[in-house]
């Protein structure tokens, strides 16, 4: 027997062994028959997988950072400095972690907006959309909690402002603030808590939600945009698809490989800065601003007057964003037209408005 034939025989023996015990044959069958629709919007299907890949990078580099990082106010800054300057390739690991975090959030946003505009949230994928939105909030939570960990000045004030905003919620705000900060002020207690959120609570939640999200995607298959569906129904376009394994997965792999290259280049050319150590008794430095994905909210806060009607300005802002997020999550249930496969221009308009608002507010913040 040739070597190739031997390998095939061994592989099928292993599969048979597994199938006998766990009935894995059905899974194999499922993978063999899984297809991905092919049309002019297929490109957008890759951003979920890209997010997943960058998340994997985060888990791996995060574990590596844990080997040296120390989550106390006296040690945190110094330990990151140590990683950046003393540990071999420490600068690379930390810079990749920071860059990959930012690229992941970017990929999440692209994924979300493409799902939104292609109406992939419509029946029967309502719960896929909701699990995805919850994952988005978790990703933002990862960003917010991870930002504080190097214990530098920018992070210190960003955390002060972010947690103080939560504190502006009537009645329960004070408790949320104390829960988040581990006391009245941003101190070492806050750092310890944020570390716990970042490396234990959020990864646990993310794992459960991610599993749910992926199972739903497998169960329901990829959504075909209503426009394409109509063209297929009218016979203007043939219904085409490609096998998931190996075609789609190989495309995915090419994208991931390219992403690794981009990450390495970014980390090498623009190593992530550390800044100055946080000092509770220093003024907030000029030009302070949060990470880019929070900038549109930050800029909105700057424009809000101290009082809007009977509400505190920042609470009014928070309420506005909260309501907007609630509507956004509930979109599969509100957009009934898309549910019936009809054109829903209003929701496309809503998406354009949201995207425009984020773009304009962010541009204003960087332009000033």
């Amino acid at each position: 027997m040739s070597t190739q034939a031997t390998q095939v025989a061994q592989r099928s023996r292993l599969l048979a062994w597994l199938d006998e015990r766990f009935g894995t044959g059905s899974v194999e069958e499922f993978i063999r028959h899984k297809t991905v629709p092919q049309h002019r919007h297929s490109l957008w299907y890759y951003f979920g997988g890209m997010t997943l890949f960058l998340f994997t990078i985060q888990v791996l580099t995060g574990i590596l950072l844990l080997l040296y990082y120390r989550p106390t106010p006296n040690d945190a800054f110094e330990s990151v400095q140590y990683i950046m300057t003393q540990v071999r390739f420490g600068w690379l690991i930390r810079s990749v972690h920071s860059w990959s975090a930012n690229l992941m959030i970017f990929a999440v946003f692209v994924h979300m907006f493409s799902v939104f505009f292609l109406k992939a949230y419509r029946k029967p994928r309502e719960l896929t959309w909701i699990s995805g939105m919850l994952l988005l909030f978790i990703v933002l939570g990862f960003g917010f909690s991870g930002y504080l960990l190097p214990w530098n000045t920018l992070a210190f004030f960003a955390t002060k402002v972010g947690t103080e905003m939560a504190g502006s919620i009537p009645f329960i705000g004070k408790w949320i603030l104390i829960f988040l900060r581990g006391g009245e002020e941003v101190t070492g207690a806050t750092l310890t808590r944020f570390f716990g959120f970042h490396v234990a609570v959020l990864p646990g939640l993310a794992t459960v939600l991610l599993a749910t999200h992926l199972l739903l995607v497998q169960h329901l298959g990829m959504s075909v945009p209503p426009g394409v569906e109509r063209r297929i129904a009218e016979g203007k376009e043939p219904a085409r698809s490609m096998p998931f394994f190996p075609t789609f997965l190989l495309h995915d792999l090419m994208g991931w490989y390219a992403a690794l290259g981009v990450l390495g280049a970014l980390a090498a050319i623009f190593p992530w800065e550390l800044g100055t150590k946080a000092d509770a008794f220093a003024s907030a430095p000029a030009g302070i601003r949060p990470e880019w994905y929070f900038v549109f909210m930050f800029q909105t806060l700057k424009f809000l007057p101290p009082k809007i009607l009977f509400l505190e300005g920042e609470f009014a802002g928070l309420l506005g964003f909260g309501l907007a997020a609630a509507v956004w999550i509930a979109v599969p249930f509100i957009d009934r037209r898309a549910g019936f496969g009809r054109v829903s221009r209003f929701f496309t308009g809503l998406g354009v408005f949201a995207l425009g608002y984020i773009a304009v507010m962010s541009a204003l913040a960087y332009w000033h």
Partner: protein
Amino acid sequence: MPNLDPAQTDSPARGRRWANLLLGGGVLASIGSFLYPALRYIIPPAVAESTSRSVIAAKAGELKPNTGKIFKFGSKPGILIRTREGGYKAFSAVCTHLNCTVQYRDDTRQIWCACHNGTYDLEGRNVSGPPPRPLEEFTVNVQGEDIVVARKA
């Protein structure tokens, strides 16, 4: 012929309802008793507020006119400003908007918060930007070599 006497069909059903209620209530109460300590645990014990009413914020001659410095007042920052005329002013340095630490700007001769571009005048009044309230003002006394800042009574 099925037995239709209500007294005989009802009492086992009622008995089961009671059993369910007691069992369910008991389980709920026990879950409450498991969760309560955990919920209390995540809210940290209150830290005693610093009771010091005054602090030495700077030494005489340390600040040039038209400058300011941040000093530690208990667990919170304060700001001491020497005006262009040479007098002293002191306020809480915690911005009333979202808690950032303010700074003195010699170009505009105002107190400025970099976080959301709030400004206060040298009386601590919020004059522009998002801050909703003035800064708390402290009294300043020059005692020999020490600039002593105290909370107003």
